[in-house]
């Protein structure tokens, strides 16, 4: 902890947190489907990112993308009810389907299973396309009513509930770059207060020409940085499952913070890392790996590394994982992809002993978040 942040916050003695258990995962990314595909890509490294290709490619800015190639929602969900689904919602549905298939069927349905999904804009292709119509149609009120519900940001969470009969808590969370970690934080509080028994928690993002141009124009990413897309979700519950082998990871504390002054962003991140470790009962030197979120962001990349180093004792960083190197920038989904990367690597190369990792995120908007994750007992 630094003196700057120590004085900015009232003294507190935060309660220790109990672990939450990740019992299944669903991942749709440019690596393919599932954790194994992601592990493969992380271990061999991604090839050079592609220029946008296929229909609509000409509309993209001159910037590489890492798209989910050949994605066809009907191949996963069947034809029924898929006509108006947008790409972001489709990623969400397919990822959640995989996560639900990994759950105990007796636990899936009902009032006590819910969804917490991160997005900052919802489906940009849906709302920008419809908005374009309202500005160019002779009769702007004749927009397609079947597509209008796709423009609300909770569309994906609502569709996941509908498809899977999940009548419990259903939240959509925005928090800039840290949105997915805010979703885990949200889920932790809800589970701790018994507002649900288990939650599908994660984040989703889709590529589109308007969103790519928006990113490109803001200039916040380095020139060679690719834009990515996809969805990662995890089944998270409070009690340990009966069978240890059902645990993919334990989630310890997830702490978040807002920093109003950009000059204090590194301190803000250091503060949440320290608090997350304290509440998890983990010493800084026990952190074996850090899954970083700000890779390829001008300025922020170094702020994140500085904040983590400060919190871990000022020396070098432990082993790092930068999932954006292989998936590109997945923004609202980035924190979920960072967690997916850890789980994927642990599955592919089970650690000799229990390993403690840190997932961190810092945004250009003042949000910072840190989550402590522990590999399962094997």
């Amino acid at each position, binding site marked *: 902890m630094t003196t700057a942040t120590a004085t900015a916050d009232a003294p507190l003695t935060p309660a220790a947190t109990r672990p939450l258990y990740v019992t299944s995962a669903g991942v749709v990314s440019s690596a393919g489907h599932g954790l194994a595909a992601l592990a493969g890509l992380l271990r061999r490294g991604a090839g050079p990112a592609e220029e946008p290709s296929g229909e609509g490619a000409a509309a993209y800015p001159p910037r590489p993308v890492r798209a989910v190639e050949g994605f066809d929602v009907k191949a996963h969900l069947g034809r029924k009810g898929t006509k108006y689904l947008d790409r972001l919602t489709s990623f969400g549905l397919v990822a959640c389907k995989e996560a639900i298939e990994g759950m105990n069927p007796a636990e899936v349905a009902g009032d006590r299973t819910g969804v917490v999904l991160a997005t900052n804009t919802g489906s940009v292709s849906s709302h920008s396309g419809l908005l374009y119509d309202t500005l160019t149609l002779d009769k702007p*009120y004749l927009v397609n*009513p079947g597509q209008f519900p796709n423009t609300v940001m909770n569309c994906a969470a609502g569709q996941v509930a509908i498809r899977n009969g999940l009548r419990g808590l259903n939240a959509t969370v925005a928090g800039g770059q840290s949105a997915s970690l805010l979703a885990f934080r949200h889920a932790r509080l809800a589970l701790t207060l*018994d507002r649900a028994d288990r939650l599908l928690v994660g984040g989703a993002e889709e590529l589109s020409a308007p969103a790519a141009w928006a990113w490109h124009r803001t200039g916040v990413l380095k020139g060679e940085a690719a834009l990515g897309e996809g969805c990662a979700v995890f089944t998270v519950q409070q009690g340990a499952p009966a069978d240890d082998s059902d645990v993919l990871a334990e989630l310890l504390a997830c702490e*978040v913070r807002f920093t109003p002054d950009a000059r204090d962003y590194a301190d803000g991140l250091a503060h949440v890392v320290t608090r997350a470790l304290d509440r998890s009962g983990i010493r800084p030197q026990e952190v074996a790996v850090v899954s970083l979120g700000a890779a390829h962001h001008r300025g922020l990349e170094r702020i994140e590394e500085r904040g983590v180093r400060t919190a871990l004792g000022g020396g070098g960083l432990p082993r790092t994982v930068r999932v954006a190197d292989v998936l590109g920038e997945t923004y609202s989904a980035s924190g979920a992809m960072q967690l997916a990367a850890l789980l994927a690597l642990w599955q592919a190369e089970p650690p000799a002993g229990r390993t403690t990792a840190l997932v961190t995120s810092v945004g250009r908007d003042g949000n910072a978040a840190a989550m402590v994750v522990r590999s399962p007992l094997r």
Partner: protein
Amino acid sequence: MAELSAAPRRRVVITGLGAVSPVGIGADVFAAAVRAGVDGTAPIQSFDASGFPRRRAGEVTDFEPTDHLKRLDPAAWGRSGLLAAAAARLAVADAEIDEEQLERGRAGAIMGTTSGESAVVQELAEQWVAGGLESLDGGLAGQTPAARIANAVSAELRLHGETQTIPTACSASNYALGYAYDLVRSGEADVMLAGGADAVNRLTHAGFYALGAMAEDLPRPFAADRTGILTGEGGAVLLLETLEGARARGARVYAEILGYAANCDAAHMVHPDATSIAACIRAAHRNAGVEPEQIDYICAHGTGTPTNDTTEVAAAREVFGTRIPPISSIKSMLGHTMGAASGFGAIACCKALEQDFLPPTANVTEADPVLGEGVDCVPGTGREARLDIVQNHGFAFGGNNVITILGRVS
């Protein structure tokens, strides 16, 4: 929903209200207008609505960000964030809480929204149409994330605590209120600003029209001749703290948050479901530890579409039987302020508890007989009444229902 775990929880109260609304700015102005049944809708000014058959909305035409904000540069933030930050400023002033206490303490902001920074996105779409995607303004593009609504509040007030935007559409403010309540109650935060914001915009106007959900002239919730909504906008923010903290600083307490519940219909994206809403009402009562006969008033979701009002009354009937409490819709005055709607509902509830009145359903003389016996929608203007426990509804696309229960603290 299962009972809460045994750990002691703190009592959470509302001590500050901030309203930037189509019927006025400031909680007292808002309350007086609501009580009088004032129509806050007018011909649309914020975008060119000439191509639409219906051109009326509830806009905040007298909103000047610099009247309220001390830190944010209005050019660097979207309208939704500015509405939220201004409402938060008003809530802090209303609570008479020390700003430095907020900066130093564990205080944060949870804001709901339906369409995020829709006015920003609309301007970008206009640039796209005029000059192609390559002409998008980078600074403006950076203002699009919905997260910036809660960020605007925390940046304006220099808060360091949890800052989260909850875009669960039209129940989002209630969701934000519930989540902020959980943060304070569990000791994760000491003070929270919770509510929501949305801006009138072209896409929402077009979409509700295309769905056949837009009123021909005015919203007339619960009336036989109701034809739908008018879109609205605003910022609605409430300041939450512990009862202990409020008493220690001698604060005026509007209400205690007794509990809330959130569920999902999991049935249809846009059609509400009476059984699911009834389940949400029952869960909220259980969570708050109250019985149906203790509820003195329901601040309805009350959009004024034929389907919503029928479904909402049917759900209430499932829970309350023949004795449905007075149930009214302030959307009759504000229009449907989307992500801010249940925040304005909560503010109306707080003022109703403080000033002893039932908020009315304006533009209405009697409830639709088809809704059945005993539906008191408080037609016309507000009515004097002593209230102790009230219930605030928020429903949304995606089937997201959230109900908060507020009670008088004696």
